[in-house]
């Protein structure tokens, strides 16, 4: 029997290797303001999974179709120290997908009031870079990464800018305009069961997964299915309810 088959057998009996209920998260902790050099930062731990997110600001010319709005960039790196299977070098598809799923959760929920990032219309706006680095992969990096990104945004401050001299002045100009709290929850399907917060062994044994980002008002703002398996419509409906419910619990940890 392989490890993956053992996990599948356990899950089919509604059991998990660490004894949790199928819909239970491990302990979650959020620490903000852990990096002095970043405009905002946070460390998130879910069980033994650990990620650090940092926010850096830069000034850029706005996009032509939105001359009075700042922009957002999310990048998640699967750092080799987090998991022996991660390799150094340019980001591979797994990291690209995770970055983009987290990016869309923040972007589509309009979590950052991008008009407040305008310095001079048509000339200069703030670009918010969120970099998420995995420190230890014990499963569920996506949920941990999304939570860390949001926590780092909530911790972040705006900086002052000298428009004449085109220079960033490294002094706080108040908090970053963060107006929503989107939470990404990944529901993993193994056999016919839906589980939350997979360990690394469970992640490797998954048939399919769906990451659903929900907002504080109960809306769903982003969704992505992954893995070689499928979800029935009924399973997607159930997953949406699970994401809303555990999203609410996770939001309280911020």
């Amino acid at each position: 029997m392989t490890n993956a088959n053992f996990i599948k057998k356990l899950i089919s009996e509604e059991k998990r290797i660490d004894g949790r209920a199928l819909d239970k998260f491990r302990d979650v902790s959020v620490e903000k303001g852990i990096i002095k050099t970043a405009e905002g930062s946070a460390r998130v731990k879910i069980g033994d999974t650990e990620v650090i997110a940092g926010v850096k600001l830069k000034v850029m010319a706005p996009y032509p179709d939105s001359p009075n709005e700042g922009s957002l960039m999310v990048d998640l790196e699967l750092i080799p120290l987090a998991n022996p299977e991660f390799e150094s070098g340019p980001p591979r598809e797994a990291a690209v997908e995770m970055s983009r799923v987290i990016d869309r959760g923040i972007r589509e929920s309009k979590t950052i009031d991008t008009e407040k990032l305008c310095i001079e219309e048509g000339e200069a706006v703030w670009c918010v870079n969120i970099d998420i680095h995995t420190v230890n992969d014990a499963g569920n990096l996506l949920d941990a990464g999304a939570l860390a990104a949001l926590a780092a945004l909530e911790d972040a401050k705006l900086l002052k800018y000298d428009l004449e001299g085109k220079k960033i002045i490294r002094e706080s100009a108040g908090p970053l305009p963060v107006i929503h709290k989107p939470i990404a929850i990944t529901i993993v399907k193994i056999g016919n069961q839906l589980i939350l917060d997979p360990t690394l062994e469970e992640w490797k044994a998954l048939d399919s997964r769906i990451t659903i980002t929900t907002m504080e008002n109960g809306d769903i703002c982003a969704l992505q299915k992954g893995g070689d398996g499928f979800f029935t419509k009924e399973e997607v409906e159930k997953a949406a309810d699970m994401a809303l419910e555990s999203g609410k619990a996770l939001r309280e940890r911020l």
Partner: protein
Amino acid sequence: MSKAGAPEKLIIDGKRLDGRKLDEFRKIEADVGMLKSSQGSGSFAFGDTKAVAGAFGPRTMHPRRLQNPKKTVVRCKYFMAPYSTEDRIRPGHSRRGTEISKVITEAFTNVIFVEDFPKSVVDVFIEIVQASASTRCAGINAAAIALADAGVPMRNLVSSVAVGKVDDTIVLDVGKAEDNYGQVDFAVSTVGGSDNFVHMQMDGAVTREEFSEMLTLAVKGCKEVYDKQLEALRKKYTKEGN
């Protein structure tokens, strides 16, 4: 929506800007086997969105280190032609293309009999020739036809459609203005007209109720696409009069 150039309304008197009803497709065109150098090929269009796809395999995977001793490796590559949009797209790989290729690969891995052909590879190349929203969906539909035309053993076709929310209303087959200025784009793919989803990507906020409504519309839309794909394949592979 604060985007420059946005029309005031996207739905007027229950009709969309291009005159369509809320649950109406643009003109669907599907063709089979028009590329002679591909083992199998297909094309699929939703109105002005046109995709072509070529499929090869199962064939031996080279280099060998990429072989899976137990399964066929499926590789789908999604590309947009540089001239397919108003602003030229830089040729080559993009993060968007990487992500879309990954989720499309996963969708087709679900239907191909991968365990029957170890150490081999099935390649699918999708090219968006002209883009007017829902490009990944058109690409998936073309790819499914190409795989069938190539004779790749699989349990069924994959069919795809984008449903959307514009002016707080749920619509089928998201068009260009709706993609640019609408609220939500939700691309989904199902297997053989069933309600089994093998691909789902949604951007934009919906209520829980709207979400259910969109799922129902998506299943119905994919079923219609599936019928069009079958019709195109039957046209090529059954003798006239049969």
